[in-house]
């Protein structure tokens, strides 16, 4: 089994996770994924990469508030957590996690995903 597949399987074990994916911010490409995905997932992944790029730009010159670490998106029924991974190539990668809101707590999920994130690219 590939290293990324193994890492995403660990993320899938977090309560309420429906899907997990590694997204290349520079291209919007889904590098590897696991779990339930819709047909439009590649387009959605590209939008998330755009979102991360815009969020970085919004942090302003010199990023006085610090670098972008995570983007959380909450809808009626879902939680989306996009964790920026420390990648020294290109514009970096996002660990995107799609959770069922009825089965997950956003603070707990963020903490658990954050704990697993550093190992994804290691």
């Amino acid at each position, binding site marked *: 089994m590939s*290293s*990324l597949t193994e890492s995403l399987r660990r993320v899938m074990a977090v309560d309420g996770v429906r899907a997990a994916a590694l997204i290349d911010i520079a291209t919007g490409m889904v590098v590897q994924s696991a779990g339930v995905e819709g047909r439009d997932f590649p387009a959605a992944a590209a939008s998330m990469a755009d979102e991360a790029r815009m969020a970085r730009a919004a942090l302003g010159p010199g990023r006085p508030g610090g670098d972008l670490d995570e983007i959380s998106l909450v809808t009626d029924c879902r939680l989306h957590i996009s964790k920026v991974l420390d990648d020294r190539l290109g514009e970096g990668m996002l660990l995107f996690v799609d959770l069922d809101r009825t089965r997950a707590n956003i603070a707990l999920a963020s903490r658990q995903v954050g704990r697993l994130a550093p190992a994804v690219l290691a």
Partner: protein
Amino acid sequence: MESEEGSVGPLREALMVCAAAGMSGTLRVTGDPGGAIHLTDGRVAAIETPGAPGPEVLLLRSHRVTEAGWDDAFAAAATSGGRMRAELVRRAMVGSGELEGLLRTALADAMFVLASGTVEEYRAEPGPVECALPLEPGAEPDGLLAEASRRIRVLAALPGRNDRGRLRVVAMPVPPGVRLGEGQDEILALADGRRSPRDLAFALGRGVYATMLLLVRMQQAGLLVPVSARAFAAAARTPGRTGSGGEPQDVGGLPQRQRDLPAPSRRLRAPGRLPERLMPLGLLRPRTGRDVSPGETS
């Protein structure tokens, strides 16, 4: 049936036959830019093409891995008969997941470049796969082709010219207060009106598609302006700027290197049905002492 973007159709035809047969070997693609798709058990392990930087270039030119470190790892892998990927990870030069991510993005970039170009013919050569950094297990051809199609559609939907692969740009002064984003300062330093997105991608150790998107964003921000082919030719014709062979010598005020000269014109052929003799039905016939054509009976 809906026609596929670029040369995705011919590549899909060939790769699907190889995948169905679980072929291990190389699918050689002739065209512009053309290349070699290395397959293991029908999955794509590596792609070599002059149109896109491979993993080695991405790691070295981006300074993610030093040349001395690469050479040491290569020598150690060759001596021990081990694998380069394992050697790089063992030496903590790059993480296992990071390297896998790099190999997957490099494959997608190379497939995008092949699919954006022209495919004149292809030939399957079953046999052992020999490349420094294969993806193991390989990537599904379907996924790579879908990503190539997505990229072609994204570029086609952007405003402006549609031959972005041949776009040349020059840097504009950076307005006061504007903070340059990821890699933009390096692009500005290299954007001299002669380098194509491919040249910039090779120079910086970035993917070609990522470079094209970055160039578009920088144009939209007014940091770059395109140089038309006509202006380029006019600059080349200017007295004192043309060599004996008619090639531009000093466009943009910088010395001209051989690799920066305009590529010779090539016969472009629109992607479409391949000649009957190249149809993939007989592609997997093992080659013997001579090159057996796919439709030939032995």
